[in-house]
């Protein structure tokens, strides 16, 4: 959906007006960029010395090591969080009331917690009680607990979004609860949830940078060390931000691509990518009303 949301083909007067505003806006934006560049140059931020470290392989190897650690933590945490999330979703949909209540409590509690609080508790709190493992595992633990709760909600929404008739039909042909879940409900729900899962992966990847606070050598921490070693803090942050941007941008694109494909194949059943659950519903309503 592009600009045509509000304006279909414009008349001659409106076209002229748009052209004038376009030129003015372009000039203003270009001006802002020029001022920013001049100001940066004025402070010597474009001096070759400050950027030279980033042309050297050892520096890049150092940073890429950080990226590798980031990706490793994100991947392990994602796999574990999917397991926790699946268990939570199934428990929340179970027939046993106690199980439902417990899982509901877990999800509601950890969804309301800032991840940073969990990381502090895992990384700085648990060692006080004699738990001693590498920072990597503290980070993974906190990420898993938190994202398990979020993914549990996504999974539950995915399963509930499936038409009741699907599970009823499965029971009607004599399948038991688990058979119906495994061979009828989950395969269909999983397809709908895929975009939302990928976009949660983007969030998780960004959140991995919080491993910074418990001295896990991920991208942000190594970037900061580079910055202070070469006295080019600003440049180091810019490079780190660019690396994150590149990785996340392509993952976000993948999520959107998956969602569009999903819509094309199965109608508006896909769950929204943005992590804001109601958006899919919103745009589906909009399309229906059109």
């Amino acid at each position, binding site marked *: 959906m592009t600009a045509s949301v509000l*304006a*279909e083909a414009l008349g001659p007067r409106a076209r002229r007006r748009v052209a004038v505003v376009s030129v003015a806006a372009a000039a203003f934006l270009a001006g802002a960029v020029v001022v920013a560049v001049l100001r940066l140059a004025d402070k010597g931020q474009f001096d070759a010395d400050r950027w030279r470290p980033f042309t050297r392989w050892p520096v890049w190897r150092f940073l890429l090591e950080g990226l590798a650690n980031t990706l490793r933590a994100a991947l392990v945490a994602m796999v574990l969080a999917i397991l926790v999330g699946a268990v939570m979703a199934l428990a929340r949909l179970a027939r046993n009331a106690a199980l439902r209540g417990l899982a509901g409590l877990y999800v509601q509690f950890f969804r309301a917690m800032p991840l940073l609080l969990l990381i502090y508790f895992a990384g700085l*709190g648990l060692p006080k009680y004699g738990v001693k493992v590498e920072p990597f595992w503290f980070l993974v633990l906190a990420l898993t607990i938190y994202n398990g709760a979020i993914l549990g909600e996504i999974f539950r929404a995915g399963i509930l979004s499936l038409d009741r008739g699907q599970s009823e039909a499965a029971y009607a042909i004599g399948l038991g609860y688990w058979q119906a879940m495994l061979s009828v409900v989950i395969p269909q729900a999983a397809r709908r949830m895929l975009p939302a899962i990928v976009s949660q992966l983007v969030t998780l990847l960004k959140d991995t940078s919080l491993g910074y606070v418990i001295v896990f050598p991920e991208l*942000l921490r190594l970037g900061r060390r580079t910055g202070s070693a070469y006295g080019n803090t*600003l440049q180091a942050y810019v490079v780190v931000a660019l690396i994150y941007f590149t990785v996340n941008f392509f993952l976000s694109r993948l999520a959107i691509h998956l969602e569009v494909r999903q819509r094309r194949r199965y109608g508006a059943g896909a769950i929204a990518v943005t992590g804001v659950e109601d958006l899919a519903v*919103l745009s589906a309503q909009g399309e229906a009303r059109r």
Partner: protein
Amino acid sequence: MSITVALTLTSFAAALVIGTVVAAFRVSPVAPLRAAGAAWVEVLRNIPLSVLMLGFYFGFTKIDIRYGEFATAVIVLSAYTSSFVAETVRAGINSVARGQAEAARSIGLTFPQSLRVVVLPQAMRTVVAPLGSVFIALIKNSSLAGLIAVVELTDMADRISFDTARPIPAFLGAAVGYLLLALPSGAVVGLLERRAAIKR
């Protein structure tokens, strides 16, 4: 806890304004504004908040852009949150029936007029719930202000845990604080949602 509340409310107010303007840019017929809006959203959304926070605080001081810790935290949180607000509002704009915009244009309103008078008021009603999720996410994200020495709830818990050497009570206290903020917020969002619903 009052610092967490202050951070959240100030940043959310700013993010609402910036986000709505950026969303308007992204659907406008003026191509450079569309591009600027898209760049704003993509850049802020794909860089971790922690990198933004530390980069602004430690990086921008090198070019003499310097504010207090609290102000820095508010600036970074509102910029980051505004990209999510913008995406939400844009989805809301897209959900407004096309005939509304067409009707607005056919009675001679210009693009800014039709957006302001006809489309946005309706879009805002539909995005109350998703904006509520953005707000609750912001409560949690405000914990990152602790990275730059703003003593909000999470940072406070960390300090108490360090001083008393008893992490469980300290962090549990903070957890209760966040629940006390998130649960009523959720209830208020639900209430607003019901009041704002378009009745047909």
